[in-house]
């Protein structure tokens, strides 16, 4: 149409967001990486680089919090896939005109900040709270609260990250054309075979995104452990926060962050490298 001034139209449109993210995302992460190589408890970026912080992590108990975060995130993801797949399936194939309303209902809590919603669980699970209080008053049962246990933390994480698994799954399942399913059925496949041969492979992009998003967010979870776990488990994000605030040891916090970023980065790269985002998001 017209010869572009000096960059193509696309790259010019991409400029504002790219510059912004360079300054707001890339730069802080580089700062963090740089800090991780600084001597412990210093605040300057000009000191001689050292690997002390990384050594500290593996010598001390910090790596335990790391493993706990990974384990909790993995458990959360597995539970969420099982919980969300039937719902996503229903939303795409069964609920018809109700699907929009249900989707809206599932979306609303996303915009209520997570500490409020988690606090609701505290009110539900605490001694003399909604659950235990009712059980005591109406049924005469006096049970122990599961609050401040590891189960509670897992519950909180499944709760908070549910929409992040549900919506990608829904998108993935909607990518399976109805007629392709019918065809497999028509060709003699049983319901289970149709699922295994057609539905599952064709909805895989959605499953991958759901897994990835949920895991990555869950591995950095902190509020659930603080609010519902009562310090039972210190996830790695909490360790990082402690290092940055109470312990005043920025380099250590930075080193922990770098390790977390490596894990997250590796996963994201592996999953998204050959992912066709255009097809997934609905390019006509």
């Amino acid at each position, binding site marked *: 149409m017209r010869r572009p001034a000096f960059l193509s139209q696309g790259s010019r449109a991409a400029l504002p967001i790219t510059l912004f993210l360079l300054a707001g995302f890339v730069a802080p992460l580089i700062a963090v990486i740089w800090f991780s190589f600084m001597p412990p408890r210093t605040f300057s970026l000009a000191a001689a680089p050292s690997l002390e912080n990384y050594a500290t992590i593996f010598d001390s108990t910090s790596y335990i919090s790391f493993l706990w975060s990974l384990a909790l995130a993995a458990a959360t993801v597995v539970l969420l896939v099982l919980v969300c797949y039937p719902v996503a399936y229903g939303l795409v194939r069964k609920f018809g005109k109700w699907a929009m309303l249900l989707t809206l209902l599932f979306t609303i809590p996303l915009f209520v900040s997570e500490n409020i919603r988690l606090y609701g669980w505290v009110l539900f699970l605490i001694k003399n709270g909604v659950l235990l209080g009712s059980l005591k008053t109406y049924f005469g049962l006096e049970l122990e609260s599961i609050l401040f246990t590891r189960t509670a933390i897992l519950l909180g994480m499944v709760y908070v990250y549910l929409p992040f698994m549900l919506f990608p799954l829904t998108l993935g399942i909607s990518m399976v*054309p109805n*007629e*392709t399913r*019918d*065809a*497999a*059925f*028509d*060709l*003699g*496949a*049983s319901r289970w*075979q149709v699922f295994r*041969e*057609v539905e599952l*492979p*064709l909805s895989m992009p959605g499953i991958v995104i759901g897994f990835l998003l949920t895991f990555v967010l869950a591995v950095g979870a902190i509020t659930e452990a603080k609010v519902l776990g009562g310090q039972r488990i210190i996830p790695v994000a909490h360790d990082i926060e402690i290092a940055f605030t109470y312990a005043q040891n920025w380099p250590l916090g930075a080193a922990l962050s770098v390790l977390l970023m490596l894990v997250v980065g590796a996963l994201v790269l592996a999953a998204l490298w050959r992912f066709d985002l255009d097809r997934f998001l609905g390019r006509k």
Partner: protein
Amino acid sequence: MAAPAPILSLKAVAKSFGTFKAVDDINLDIAEGEFFTIVGPSGSGKTTLLRMIAGMEQPSGGDILLRGERINDVPANKRPTCMVFQSLALFPHRTVGENIEFSLKIKGISKEARKVRALELMDLLRLPQSCYAKSVMKCSGGERQRVALARALAYDLQILFIDEPLSAIDSKLRKTLEKELKDIHRETKKTFVYITHSLEEAMVMSDRIGVMQAGKLVQVGTPEVIYSAPNNRFVSEFIGDVNVIGVDVAAGGLLHATSLDTSLKPPAVPQGFSSGHLVIRPEFLRFVTEPSEVDNAVTGRLYNEYALGSRIQYQVRVGEAVFVVEKLRQQAFNGVRGDKVTIGWDAADSILVTD
């Protein structure tokens, strides 16, 4: 000698969605090995009917019999029928070979045997062997059609259903595929039930045609019958441009054309006929100099002329009505727009329909 029992029998089959009757009281017998085509405009219910026979939809009423046995409750994956969908519904994540072999893999047939059968079918469908490992997403439109057909034929079927596969194809490729489908039908000797909205296409391939309108089967017959003896106005207008004249019964075995206000000699007036339409196909109208050359003649003005490849179409204005005349190029009529012309037809070349 009694006629062989039909392979497929539909008795009072109907389907309603809420108050909307998509399919209404269909009674039909399809003979084994027949190429039967269901023709109708969009929304006439043909796809719904097909889906019911294939097992994708439950009829609201009526029975579907396969070789005399009621199959209403047999699920689609157990019926000895297979369907080629309008969208083809190929498995995009699989290769050509894997698509074709799908039903064989489901049955547990060994890899080698599957491949042999797949290559056989690819030969039949004129797919080059090199396509076997090709991803279906990389195949052309024509190749995909053939893969879809091969996949369906690999299934141990007795009836093959084909739902409007050629509507999105350009006309040259379509003509080739129509002929090839007919060849495959002859070679495999299976029963084919085909759906299309184009009567021309149906006429090329079918042994018999069923015309559907608003959920009902309005006529079933061979292509010749459908063409030359349509039951009603809808069927007669389904192919090409036709001339339709509203008529009432008049004295002496004649008909009175209501809009032209003249008497016409009909082919044969059935008992109890009071009013309806006289249908004359454009190729049966002639330009005449003397009205006595033909049974029926009208006079008007030459209005338009269209070149349609091997034929030329003339439009003649007679009063308020426009008549369409078609002539082969070699027999073109020498006339100028605005000329006064007389056109006519023989009674035997016209069709009387009651609507």
